[in-house]
Each structure stands twice: as C-alpha cells, then as structure tokens.
C-alpha cells in the first residue's frame, strides 16, 4: 500500500501549477470566456503535454493515467481555469485517440490549437461553446453513444450563467456522427465526472486559502477576525471537508487507472464528496469574507460561482449518491 503521487506525477503537477499560477491570474479569469490571453494559455497547456495526458504515446499523448489527470485538474480547479480542460483531457483525447479519421482534430487539441466542448445530456446547453469548434454530445451516465458535432453546423446563442466565465451557450442544429459506444462511453463519462470532482477539490482549496488569508489580515474589535473562535471553528470544519474529500478523488483515479470493478462507485463517491465539500467551503469562505466577499470587485465570487456550476455539472451530489446506493444494493 502506498497512497501518494509518484515523483514523476508530483513533478508534472508542480509544472502545471507554476504555469497556471503564472498565466491564469484572476485578471485572466475575469477576461473569460474569450479573453485575449486564453488561446495562448491553452497552447502552453498543449505544449507541455497536459491536454493529451491520457492519450497513448503512439497517438501523440503522454500515456499517463487517471491519477495524473486528477493531480492536474486539481490545479486547474485551484485557478478556476476558464478553459475546457476536463473536456479535452478526460473525454476528447481518449475518445478520439483510437479513430484515424479524426487524427487531425486530435492533434489540434493536443497542440492546444482547438478546444472542444461537451454536452453529455444532449440538452444543447453547454459551456465553452463560443470558443470550441466541436461539441461531444451524449453519453450521460455512461450510456448511449457520444457524437462529434461541429459547432458551426448549428446556431449558437449565449446563455446567462451564474458563472459568466464558463461561456455557456445554447446550441441548436444537427447532431454529428457517433464516434463512441459501449465501454468507451462509460469510461469517458467516468473520467469527465472524476475530472470535475478534481476541479472542485482545487476550487475548495483555493477558497479556503483565500478565506484564511482574509481572516488573518482583516481586523475587527481590535483583533484579527481569524482569532475569533466562531471563525476559527468554521474554517477548521472547512478544512476537514476538503481533507477528507481529496483522498477519495485521488483513490477514484487509482480505481480507474487499475480498471477496478468498483471504479464507477468510486468515481461517484468522489464527485459527491468533492461537490458537497467545495459547496460547503464556498459558504464558509463567503461568510468569513463578509460584505467584501459579496462584491464582484473582490475575487472570491469567481471561485464561488464556478463551484456552484461544477457541483451540479456531470451529475450533482444527490445523483451520484444514488449511484453509490445502487452499488450497495440500497437503491434500484
């Protein structure tokens, strides 16, 4: 038994973290979904191989596994990366890798020249729609087929999301050709759910860090706000939430990487725990910031809003707990 990233995984994570801290400031985040610096950031992620980390080396990827994916997407969550990294890494890369006819698209994604959106429930509503050239639709719950649809083959309208940096759209038009079926779809769904869980862990860490920094700096009643027991205890509980969600997310990555028969259950548990943890941390972080956190001039709201969106994306906590219940024989 050994529960830790390998030295190589740790190194990769650290490279990604440096890159994102440098190139994905909150100023860049505010410029999303179509800020001028975002395409360059996407290309940089491509250059270091992040976007193809699950793609086998013979198809131009890094051939890494889901544990590495989790490590990378926690970092993406930490900066609320306003780009479809989970879509590219978890879904598009592995699905396109086996398909020679889509070699060019894959190569463009891996180089960070092209983004791709995902619409698992085929509702026509999905994020990153204005910048993506394709959308992968279908595959909700791991069932059915996934289709590859060129976005300009249909009509696009902006939708007002709680989180404007997501670039949510309504897309109408013909659905493209099916590119995956059966177990590939199931694996893709699970990877995307897990990737979202990882982003939520990163978001939770970031919001907690911000709250801690704020209550150390902010003084009221002649003392730092963070010296009051009510604030201390609320933040301690927030740390408990994140500390006990993160291992479940990493372990679900391990389950997927090793093809465990419990992978579905583990991924659902990861998403449920990460989503509720990040949502709870969001509330605590906002409360600890007081009115300051309630303004759009301060940065906290960017992370709150992404958390709210991702907590319900790819199945909310209740949905995934039902999946776990099914695996335990408690839900039919």
């Amino acid at each position: 038994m050994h529960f830790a990233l390998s030295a190589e995984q740790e190194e990769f994570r650290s490279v990604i973290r440096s890159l994102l801290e440098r190139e994905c400031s909150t100023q860049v985040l505010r410029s999303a979904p179509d800020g001028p610096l975002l395409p360059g950031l996407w290309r940089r992620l491509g250059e270091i191989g992040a976007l193809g980390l699950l793609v086998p080396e013979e198809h131009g990827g890094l051939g890494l596994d889901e544990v590495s994916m989790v490590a990378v997407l926690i970092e993406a969550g930490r900066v609320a990366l306003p780009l479809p990294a989970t879509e590219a890494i978890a879904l598009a890369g592995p699905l396109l890798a086996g398909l020679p006819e889509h070699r060019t698209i894959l190569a463009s994604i891996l180089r960070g020249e092209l983004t791709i959106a995902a619409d698992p429930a085929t509702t026509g509503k999905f994020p990153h729609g204005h910048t993506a050239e394709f959308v992968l639709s279908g595959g909700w719950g791991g069932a059915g087929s996934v289709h590859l649809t060129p976005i300009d083959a249909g009509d696009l309208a902006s939708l007002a999301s709680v989180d404007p940096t997501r670039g949510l759209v309504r897309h109408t038009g013909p659905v493209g050709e099916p590119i995956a079926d059966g177990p590939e779809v199931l694996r893709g769904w699970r990877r995307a759910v897990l990737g979202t869980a990882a982003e939520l862990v990163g978001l939770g860490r970031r919001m907690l860090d911000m709250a801690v920094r704020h209550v150390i700096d902010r003084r009221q009643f002649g003392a730092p706000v963070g010296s009051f027991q009510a604030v201390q205890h609320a933040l301690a509980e927030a740390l408990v939430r994140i500390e006990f969600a993160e291992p479940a997310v990493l372990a679900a990555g391990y389950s997927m990487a090793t093809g465990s028969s419990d992978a579905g259950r583990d991924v659902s548990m990861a998403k449920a725990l990460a989503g509720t943890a990040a949502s709870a941390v969001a509330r605590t972080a906002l409360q600890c910031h007081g009115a300051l956190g309630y303004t759009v001039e301060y940065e906290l709201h960017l992370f709150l809003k992404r958390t709210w969106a991702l907590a319900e994306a790819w199945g909310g906590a209740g949905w995934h707990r039902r999946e776990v219940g099914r695996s335990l024989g408690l839900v039919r």
Partner: protein
Amino acid sequence: MDLRDTSAEAAFRAEAREWLAAHRPDPPLPSGDTAAGFALHVQWERELFDAGWAVVSWPKRYGGRDASLVEWLIFEEEYYRSGAPQRVTQNGIFLLAPTLFAFGTQEQQDRILPRMAATQDVWCQGWSEPEAGSDLASIRSRAVRDEQAGGWRLTGQKTWTTRGAFCTHLFGLFRTDPEAGRHRGLTYFLVPLHSEGVTVRGFGRLDGDDGFADVFFDEVFVPDDAVLGGVNEGWRVAMATTGSERGLTLRSPGRFRQTARRLVDLAASGGDDLDARLADEVVQGWMAAEAYQLFTLRQITGILNGHEPGAASSLNKLFWSELDIRLHATALELIGADGELDGPWSRGYQFALGGPIYAGTNEIQRTIVAERLLGLPRR
C-alpha cells in the same frame, strides 16, 4: 389564543388582496438594484403610495392607514403572496422610519416622512465603512462642528451601501467626539446625497447588479437639523434601528412563505419523479417558513402586550437568513444543472447568501443571543 383574522383584519386583508391582484407589476419588474430597474420600482412604489399601501402602519397624516401591527403583517403577507417585488424603499421605511418615530423631532418627522412615503426621497443606510463591518463601533467617518454655519462638516467613507448609487438620501453614523471611546461620541446624521462634497460610486454585488456603493464625504455640510436623536447619542439611536433591521420589520414572514409556496409548486411540478429525499427537504423548508410565521405571530402578540422584542430580534435574523438559503438551495437541487442559468432561483440564492452577512453577521447575532437572551458571560 385566536389565530384567525378579526372581522376588521379580514376586511383589510380582502381589500389588500384585491388591490394587489389588480395592480401588481405583471410581468415582474427587473431587479431594482440596477439604474433602469430602480426607476421602474420607484414608479411602482409611487403607485402603492397613491393607493395608500406604501406605509400602512404609519399615521394617516404621513400617508399611512394607522394600521395595526397585525394588519401590517397581513399586508406584507398579501404583498408577497401576490408576487409583488421586493421594495427599494425598505431601508427608509423599515429602518429609518421607526427610528424617526422614536427619536425624531416633530419638524424632522413632518419634513422627512411624507416624502419618504411618497418615494420622493429614497433613503439608503450608511453604517459600514471599510474598517467597520461587524465592528460597527469602530466607525472613522467624522463630523466636525461648524459653529459659524450652524451645522456639521462630514468627512469619510461609507461602503457596501445598498442601492447607494440610486438613492437620494443617506442615514448613518459619524464620529462627533474623537476623544470618546468606541460606542460613545457617535452621532446619527441624515444626509442628502446631492450635497456638495458627496461622491457616490456604485459597484457590483455578488449577483452582478450594481447594488452596492461607496459613498465618499469630503467636508459635506449638513445643518443642525440633520442630527437625529442628539449629538453623541448615535449609538443608542442606531441600536434601535438595527433591532428593527435584523428582526421583524425588514423581513416579515410573508416573503419566506411565498418562497416556500413557490418551492412546493416547483417540487410538485416534477410529478411522481420527485425523490423522497428532496421531498423531505422541501417539507422541511416549508415547515420552517410556517414556523417563522408562528414565531412572529407570537412575538407580535407580545409587542402588543408591551414586550419589546429587543435582543430577541436576533432570533428572527438567525432564523430567516438560514431559512432563505435553505429554500433556495433546495430549489437549486431540484432544478439540477439548469440551476446554473440566471433565473429567479439562482438570483434568489445569491441574494439569500447575503442574509447571514448583512444587518449584522449571524456570528454577531449568536453572540447577542448568548449574552443577552441566555445570560452567558462576556469574555
């Protein structure tokens, strides 16, 4: 014990319901926390005033109906039930006015209240400062006596001022005696925002609306009659207002019962697919809204019997703020991924999240409850 309307109350209710059904804005108004929305809200509030519904509990001479506290509650209930919008005049009518009735001179009342009732003046609250949030007593904005001009010069900054960019007047605390300790030496001022030296800068709230403002004062002159309740008496006067704010008058149960009804409708609209866990959440939210109503009825009976709620208003604040979040969070869970879309529930959720922060954070309220209602010792 009699929880029914008296015949007078029933008649009042019927009249309010009928008028509201005929006049409430339909389709609903946009948010009153944007410049365009605010103008539409002012129009609506003037319509309310013209029909005598703006300030039902006030004396007739100020535009009210001399309605009883119970009738006021009935009006609130019917108002929100009809789907009418939140009131952009609330800080004046529900926070400043009770203070004016308690501490204002006759001249102040006669001058200010009728214009407030008619939405000619709209008041915002100037409590918070960058360094004075929960710790209200650490206010730094100051008022310096100008003997010659017969008044005061105000200098400093207020912030997180709700609708400050759209209001015409501000009430707030300024330090008049810099030597006196924290709570002492503060004075309650009434300030027209068009005064020379006032600069207002609107900025965005969590939900994106420009609902907040910084208000800067640079040697702003106000005459002596801008002082409410006596020089250096501001803390005592303000505490009366904050009691109203956190308690009953700012957030009557009608508003949350209406939200609870909408939540039940939302849950029922899904038909048989409703998950039993979510059904239970809805029931809990609905029961909590009913419990708030019943608590309030009992509280009002107490007030009518001469018991001022005092620190008990902190119980109201704790309960309604958590209730509001719960109702909206449950709705968003019912809605699922579409909850990300801008809409009444997602907007309402963001608004509700402010509840445990504004009007004195819930941490402050719990301390008040512990020390004043339970008698626990201070540190």
